[in-house]
């Protein structure tokens, strides 16, 4: 009988090597660069994946999928600042550095840190951001809020006056 139990453990040890890739195609990323006027947009079609045991993660989105309340502002965003026909996508490649502290089998909210390379408008920059991973009955949600300096990625005389120098970026992605 003891050997039976031992063999079950041995079988289980195979699955230790297994890892899970969590993914979503409907993640949400929004930004707020309001200065004198409201400059806010949201993108509900964010493609994101991460692997639970390595913490490797990617985010990818289409610039044109950012929706503004003001349609003309959306045109200017695409045409003048992001040049979205030339640079249709923005992405992030990085790692959750402390992914080992997250127990994906247990419900709860875990503080995590992510760092990696953010590419917007064809410019790649190292970024680091704190966030949380929430596990709720197998559903995993990643939330983070961080700021980027707009002049790092795009140029334009309006930045700093009508457009804020820094944009606050909010990520809210629910994975399956």
């Amino acid at each position, binding site marked *: 009988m003891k*050997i*039976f139990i031992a*063999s079950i453990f*041995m*079988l289980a*040890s*195979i699955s230790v*090597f*297994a*890892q*899970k*890739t969590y993914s979503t195609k409907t993640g*949400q990323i*929004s930004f707020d660069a309001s200065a004198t*006027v409201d*400059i*806010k947009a*949201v993108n*509900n079609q964010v493609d994101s*994946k*991460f*692997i639970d*045991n*390595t*913490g*490797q*993660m*990617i985010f*990818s989105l*289409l610039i*044109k999928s950012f*929706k503004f*309340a*003001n*349609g*003309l*502002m*959306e*045109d*200017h965003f*695409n*045409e*003048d600042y992001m*040049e979205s*026909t*030339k640079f*249709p*996508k923005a*992405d992030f*490649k990085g*790692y959750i550095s402390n992914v080992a502290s997250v127990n994906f089998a247990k419900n709860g909210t875990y503080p995590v840190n992510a760092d990696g390379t953010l590419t917007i408008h064809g410019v790649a920059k190292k970024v680091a951001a704190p966030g949380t991973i929430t596990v709720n009955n197998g559903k995993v949600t990643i939330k983070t809020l961080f700021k980027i300096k707009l002049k790092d990625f795009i140029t*334009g005389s*309006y930045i700093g006056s*009508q*457009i804020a120098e820094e944009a606050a970026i909010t990520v809210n992605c629910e994975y399956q």
Partner: protein
Amino acid sequence: MFNHKKNIIFTILIFAISLMQISAKAQNKKGKKESEKKSIISKQITSVDTTGKPSGDLFAELDQQNASNKKSETDITTATFKTTRLINGHSIENVAKGVLDVKISHRFGTLNEGAYAIWGLDAATMRMGVDYGVTDRLMVGIGRSEYQKTYDGFFKYRILRQSTGKVNMPISVSYVASMHWKTIHFDATQNDIVHYTDRLTYAHQLIIARKMSDYFSLQVVPTLVHYNNSAPLNKYPNDYYSIGIGARQRITKRLNLTAEYFPRITKLDGYVNSFSLGVDIETGGHVFQFNFSNSTGINERAVINETLDTWEDGGIHFGFNIARVFTIKKAKKLGW
């Protein structure tokens, strides 16, 4: 005897399990080597994920996706022109769904009036109007021009949208139908018009546009203007054809030059073709349009068919369009 049999079964079981483990490890090693070839990310531990597929490197996956999926999505061309009017006529653009656009347009007198009338600035005619986006493809609008005290209303429907990617559509096409009602008092000496419906005109326009590049857009506008009664006494035909041509050339991110020309095929006597040049200046969320034109009126009938002044004689009107947009109905899934 019994014990002996039991031991054999256990031995076989353990043997089988260890075999499975060896093969699983071998598979891991193989996968690892492959992924190491693909990229030199040392953090990556490759193995078999729960779906059974060898899970690769997400970064490589993303690079691959970026290179290949350009064709799997449709990219609808936006901002062919900067606003819903090119200069005097309609452009291919619509206001977005739920957006109310209040437009005030001015056309001053002619430059050849000279310094006495400060090159036309003493005289001005205007049109006030509101446009509304019912859907992203359908917009409606009403307006009232001081010139000939004309009321107008229109709807514009986007039939085709230029796009690349999965759906490749080289042009955008819209249909505009407008109606104009002249209410200025009758000229007593002419004694020709008897009923208000005689003073109605209709315009049907098909706008065919293409954004050639980020810097240049072109549109062609076959137009039919129908007069209920072409004064005096219906001796002229009722239908007038023309083909409008419009273009936008981007100079800087904030500055665009526009041009609009309406050569007529069937002509009303005594009138000339309308030609206009304009400048579109963008500020965050608004577009100001300045223009020079030989037309005074600001509706299809007055511009296309009843332009009186000529560029050669300096019969040029300075004018501008200003617009203010109000978002009446926010898009549902914006999430704030």
